[in-house]
């Protein structure tokens, strides 16, 4: 029998993870106008920061989240300043920027692999489990959902009420006009890259805490993150929220369907792939446009 309540909770957990992971990608994609494939490694860096801090005696999960955020923010800012900004200023083509991001991702991924090894690891954390009727939920999931909701609310107020938040939306809407309006685009873009990488790292810590971690952790979930970015409409945070919910539901109900017809649940990634292809064919500009 299908336990709809459990599937809905699982969907919410998946959606929350994708929302945290995808926010930075959609915002930086909207501002910088190219897909950064090295974004996967910002997620992985978060996961390994978590491993580093949680391995110490007295390691504290929330502290690992914060420190992961800060370290990845630094890596995100450095990536933009040292690699992408110089290329953008030389009017490099989209394809060159994409290839550069793939190369940067490769370097970061293999640096992590060389530093921590390629073997799969785990945080070795035990999370209390709560049963509400038939529905099982862990404390980690509750923290994840609460973090995603908090991030969404904070970001909503940031984007609609603050000067810098409005500037981010203005640059995404019309970069040249934003410049002649007095907005220092580079400063705002750098801030967004830092913040986005930080959120991605938090998603990495949650992902690693919920499953396990390897240098491929970020790369393995890059496809669904790109799928929700495209589905939500590039640069649209609100579109991303809806898209994350849709993909979370589609994946978790899809897994039940896959099991029902005798297919491996390993095919769940195919659902994101189908959504991505469907969006590109039917509504290339996504839900928000």
């Amino acid at each position, binding site marked *: 029998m299908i336990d709809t309540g459990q599937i809905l909770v699982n969907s919410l957990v998946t959606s929350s993870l994708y929302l945290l992971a995808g926010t930075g990608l959609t915002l930086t994609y909207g501002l910088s106008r190219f897909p950064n494939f090295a974004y996967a490694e910002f997620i992985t860096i978060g996961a390994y920061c978590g491993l580093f801090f949680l391995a110490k005696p007295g390691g504290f999960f929330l502290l690992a989240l914060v420190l992961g955020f800060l370290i990845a923010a630094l890596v995100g800012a450095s990536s933009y300043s040292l690699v992408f900004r110089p290329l953008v200023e030389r009017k490099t083509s989209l394809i060159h920027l994409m290839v550069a991001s793939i190369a940067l991702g490769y370097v970061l991924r293999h640096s992590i692999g060389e530093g921590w090894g390629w073997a799969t690891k785990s945080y070795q954390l035990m999370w209390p489990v709560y049963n509400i009727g038939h529905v099982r939920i862990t404390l980690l999931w509750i923290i994840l959902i609460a973090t995603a909701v908090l991030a969404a609310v904070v970001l909503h107020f940031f984007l609609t009420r603050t000067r810098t938040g409005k*500037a981010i*939306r*203005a640059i*995404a809407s019309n970069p*040249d006009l934003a*410049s002649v309006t*007095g907005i*220092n685009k580079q400063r705002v873009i750098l801030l967004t890259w830092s913040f986005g990488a930080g959120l991605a790292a938090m998603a990495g810590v949650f992902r690693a805490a919920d499953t396990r971690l390897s240098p491929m952790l970020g790369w393995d979930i890059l496809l669904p993150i790109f799928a929700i970015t495209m589905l939500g409409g590039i640069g649209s945070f609100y579109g991303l929220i809806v898209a994350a919910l849709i993909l979370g539901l589609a994946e978790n109900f899809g897994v039940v369907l896959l099991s029902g017809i005798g297919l491996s649940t390993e095919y769940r990634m195919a659902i994101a792939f189908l959504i991505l292809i469907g969006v590109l064919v039917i509504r290339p500009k996504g839900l928000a446009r």
Partner: protein
Amino acid sequence: MPLFQAKNIRAGYGDVVIVDGVSISVSANNLVAIVGPNGSGKSTLLKSLLGLARLFSGQVLYGDRDVTRIKSWQAVEVGLGYVPQVNNVFTNLTINENLEMGAYCRRDKAGIKSDLEETYQRFPELAARKKARAETLSGGERQLLAIARAMMAHPKMLLLDEPLAFLSPKASGVVLNRLLQIQAEGTSMLLVEQNTIKALQSASYGYILNQGRCVMEGKGQELLADESLRERFLGLGKEV
């Protein structure tokens, strides 16, 4: 001393030179027009002054300050406001947010608030739809919003790129009247315009560009009255 001078400007895109050796000067409280046929380099000239097109050589002075190759985001702080021809509003922002972005370089919250109220009095078309996204506005309303947005920074001089293009006669009349009102209140203007008659009638001084070069300059009315110019460069035919 002129408020704004561009000397011997050579500009274009990539390696292509579109404007070659053009000099212009704008005195305080004046409206200066740059007119000429399509493709004469009017818009490129304007963009090169603000860092939006490539400036190969030349000098740009604002008062006695050299602002050559100024970064486009610093132009507002200097006192230069710019209204582009197309894509002149932030479509996904509300009208109010567009105006707030116009005041991005300002920190005086109380002053910004009072300027917003004043702007809505001056532009009642916008006041009724403060919270509507700018993408819902008509062409004429967008142009008014673009001008109002630029004015939020208190520029000493406005650079306007074909503000009357693509507008109905009624809408272009409304936009031009607002511009003249703003100019009368003390904001200098450098107006690039395809609508030659309206531009030169309103301008104290004008420049005629053709194929990237300045072929004539003089008082607006005098340029309009020159029959050889009317036929050769302005496409206006003989005056009747």
